[in-house]
């Protein structure tokens, strides 16, 4: 993959990462006498990043989305070949934008329950860490950011959480650290083996290592496993998901939002960038395993979610299921699946982030998250119910909303690659409808009794925070084209990279039936078969897909 630097503002990504970090330092230096200024300062710092991210989105050249843009490199630890190297391509662009936008919303939307100074400082450190992970193109730099995010999240859960917060925070920290411990060994091994095989100096440059592909097959498979373990814990994949329900349930609202929307994506993003790209052969080799784990996650997460009595825990388990979709999309190893996976990363971030915010609002009003204690909230809080409804349906994957586009592409891809697994996974879509609709019904429908009847509706500020989420949910459901056309070139490049480097591997596409795109589906009543080009779906004009299928289910 080639890389281009931005001409007008070459350091945009570095600044994007450093601004929140600097904001955290400013917060620490703020006088004790003005606690009212803490939140505005935190907001400004995160908003600057958000503005930069939006500017970047506008400047991003969709035509060369497969190459790294806004690329920048500095020496960091020269003696060990470690550099500060940043860049975004179609895979990371929307994750960066989503991260930069969701942080100010989480800061505005949720007040610190106590000790605001460290709270906002940790939030900003967390933002810097997450952004750094998505833009890093050096293995060590990636690892450094991947690991540093544990610290602020640990303190957010432990310091501002509920229930068994210290337990949940420690479990979260240790699980994730265990995963990445082996990854560090693998990263170092990759670099040394690469340098000894290629005869060059030791470098941790992702592109240089990934493009040369000099590792022995068996070695690469072991190393892939070490990387995959780190990401599987973060995603989280069954069976290393057990930290997630505890962390989510006990975390403060903003912590849950960030955890679900951004931090889980560090794992799925890592699987693409450092799994598929770095170890194409091993990815192909282990794809059945990963897909299997993903499918188990979908079904297990859905069943577990349906069983929950705690609304927040329910949403947490639904994440396990949704992330399973992303993993099977990724390891379908074809354009549809991977595009759908990347889309779902953003979609899940938006939908589940919003869901956690809403659950937080309910908790704030009712001081309980027990589903059985809630009921009939629709009457006293119609607006809250409506917003919850839209977000919940987007999480279910209702056509016309964002979740549908991603899930459909994932299932298409998975169907071509692992047919029966796709069938099982599709059952997960139905299960999602079951547990979410059932939860909605129990919480919002029925007669409101006691305190439930006095639940206040959405306040102005809350409505303003939710508005961008709703807008994103609808926009990406109705008109995903601008997103897809930026994601897809990068996805194609990754798939081509895998095909080039794995002997005997061809992108799994529908061979009996020609490939199907969203556009085709929309016209499916007119024509059952259209000519496949044998190269998978490369032309998604998904813009009208959601529309036309609007009443399809």
């Amino acid at each position, binding site marked *: 993959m080639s890389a281009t630097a931005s001409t007008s503002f070459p350091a945009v990504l570095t600044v994007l990462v450093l601004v929140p970090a600097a904001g955290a330092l400013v917060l620490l230096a703020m006088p004790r006498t003005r606690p009212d200024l803490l939140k505005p300062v935190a907001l400004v710092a995160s908003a600057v990043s958000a503005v930069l991210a939006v500017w970047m989105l506008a400047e991003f050249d969709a035509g060369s989305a497969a190459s790294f843009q806004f690329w920048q490199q500095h*020496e*960091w*630890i*020269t*003696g*060990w070949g470690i550099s500060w190297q940043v860049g975004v391509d179609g895979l990371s662009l929307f994750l960066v934008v989503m991260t930069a936008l969701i942080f100010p919303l989480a800061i505005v939307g949720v007040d610190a329950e106590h000790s605001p100074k460290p709270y906002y400082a940790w939030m900003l450190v967390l933002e810097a860490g997450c952004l750094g992970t998505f833009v890093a193109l050096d293995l*060590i730099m990636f*690892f*450094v*950011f991947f*690991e*540093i995010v*544990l*610290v602020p999240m*640990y*303190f957010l859960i*432990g*310091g501002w959480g509920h229930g068994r*917060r*210290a337990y949940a*925070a*420690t479990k979260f*920290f*240790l699980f994730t*650290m*265990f995963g990445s*411990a*082996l990854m*560090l*060994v693998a990263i*170092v*091994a990759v670099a*040394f083996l690469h340098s000894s095989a290629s005869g060059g100096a030791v470098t941790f440059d992702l592109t240089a290592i990934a493009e040369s592909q000099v590792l022995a097959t068996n070695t690469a498979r072991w190393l892939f496993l070490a990387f995959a373990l780190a990401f599987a814990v973060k995603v989280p994949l069954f069976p290393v998901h057990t930290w997630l329900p505890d962390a989510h349930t006990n975390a403060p609202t903003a912590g849950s939002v960030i955890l679900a929307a951004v931090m889980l994506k560090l794992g799925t993003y890592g699987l693409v960038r450092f799994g598929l790209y770095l170890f194409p052969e091993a990815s192909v080799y282990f794809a059945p395993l990963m897909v299997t784990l993903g499918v188990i996650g979908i079904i297990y997460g859905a069943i577990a979610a349906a069983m929950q009595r705690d609304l927040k825990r329910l949403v947490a388990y639904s994440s396990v299921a949704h992330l399973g979709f992303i993993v099977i999309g990724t390891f379908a190893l074809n354009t549809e699946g991977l595009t759908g996976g990347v889309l779902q990363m953003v979609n899940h971030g938006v939908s589940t982030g919003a869901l956690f915010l809403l659950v937080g609002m309910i908790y704030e009003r009712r001081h309980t998250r027990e589903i059985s204690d809630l009921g009939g909230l629709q009457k006293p809080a119609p607006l809250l119910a409506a917003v919850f409804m839209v977000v919940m349906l987007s999480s279910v994957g209702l056509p016309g909303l964002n979740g549908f586009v991603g899930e459909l592409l994932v299932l298409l891809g998975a169907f071509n690659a692992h047919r029966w697994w796709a069938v099982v996974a599709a059952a997960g879509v139905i299960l999602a409808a079951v547990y979410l609709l059932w939860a909605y019904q129990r919480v919002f429908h029925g007669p409101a009794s006691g305190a439930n009847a006095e639940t206040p509706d959405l306040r102005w500020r809350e409505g303003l925070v939710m508005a961008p989420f709703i807008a994103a949910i609808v926009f990406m459901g109705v008109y995903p084209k601008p997103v897809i056309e930026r994601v897809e070139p990068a996805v194609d490049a990754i798939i081509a990279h895998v095909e080039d480097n794995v002997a005997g591997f061809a992108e799994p596409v529908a061979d009996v039936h020609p490939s199907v795109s969203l556009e085709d589906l929309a016209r499916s009543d007119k024509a059952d078969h259209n000519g496949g080009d044998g190269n998978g779906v490369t032309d998604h004009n998904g813009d009208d897909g959601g529309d036309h299928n609007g009443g399809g289910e």
Partner: protein
Amino acid sequence: MGSVLAQLPVRTPPVDWTGLLPVLLPGAGALVLLMIRSLVPSRVVPAALDAVWTFAVAGAGLVSVVVLWQRDAVVEAFGGQLVMDRMALFVAAVVLGSVALAAPTLPRYCRRVEVASAELCVLMLLAAAGAVVMAGAADLIVLFLGLETMSIAAYVMAALNLRRLESLEAGLKYFVLGAFSTAFLLFGIALVYGATGTTNLDGIASHLDAFILLRDGMLLAGAAMLLVGLGFKVAAAPFHAWAPDTYVGAPTPVTALMASAVKAAGFVALIRVFVEALGTRADDWRPAVFALACATLAVGSVLAAVQSDAKRVLAYSSISHAGFILVGVQAASDSGVAAVLFYLAAYAVIAVGSFTVVAVLSGQRDDRTGLDTLAGLAARRPALALGLTILLLAQAGVPFTSGFVAKFSVIAAAVEARSYWLAVVAMVSAVVAAFAYLRVVVAMYFRDSGDETETAAETSKPSVGLGAGAVIVAAVLLTVAMGVVPSVLESLSSTAAGL
């Protein structure tokens, strides 16, 4: 050298005294302080003089190290018995830096706990002189001399808190087991001399390089005994039994010094003997160090995780760090040595900083170090809690701290030497150790202090003091700086390792 007979009458070899300043300054400084304190009535000189003098002497020693480093010429003294090369200077800097960092805490600490500060300071400087001799030793006998100078001072320092029984126990344990290990070391030296005919480290290396020993049992037995003897000194499992009790019982600033300077000296001795002198026999000793490293990592991190006393957590964590450093030794390469040196420097700062926080909190008798006494510290002393948290996270190897870079460098050395499994063991044990540090953090941040009425006056607002405060701030800043911009220390340690 030419024929010795031709040079009769014997002329003493020329000595470059300036090159020996890192040894002479602390040694002479200790003696001068001892004279002043013995001859001048104590009401004439302020009590703080001891610590100020120690700090000044250590600082002067550091300056001399910097000057010698820039002179870029290896100083050989006493007929090549003492060689102040780059590695010796690097370790001397770590040792003297640890002393300089430990000293500012002393005035207030000694007054509170009623430890004799003059004796403590004299012994600290003497121990430092011994440690620097170890760093520069080019001969097993000189190495032994330096080790004994350092150890005997350390034994006494450990027992210096006369009012506390644990301190006396610490001194006794340290002394008995230390003397025991010294016997191993001496026996090892004798056997290696028997096998190679020399005690000079270079001589041993060139002998082993030039000759193939047909019967190498004596050499191997000697090497094994040296490993046991030095393993005791660096508290490597299974020779670590003395360490936790000694660390906990000794006055806390002394513990800081034992974890930093004493450990650094022990490891440089390991490098000198094994990587340099016995480098050609690396295939023989590497498996032993491999096993030693695994055991040390496992014992240190697992036992650290189950302690209920902050000082004991740090003591066991110091053992687990020794395991990490052994991973670098096991690589038996220049990059391994560089990694060891980096780790020693980074850990010295972290250790002194962490133990200084403990010293500040430890109360009148230097024994209030239980995790429950830390409960709610974040609410009472947010800055102190934050400082200790950063130092603990650094020990856990969190990025943007020197601890991460140090761990990275030893892992890189191990991977480069193809010791993948050792690297994996090390990283997994780092996770276990992280649990131990998190328990301390949990106590400070997420738990309320329970018995506030009982000892409210003492615990609720422990007074930090200017000296200790400056030390903690300096340690935290250095730790973060070395984590964000590690290139400086990295290039220094690489140069010191001869890379």
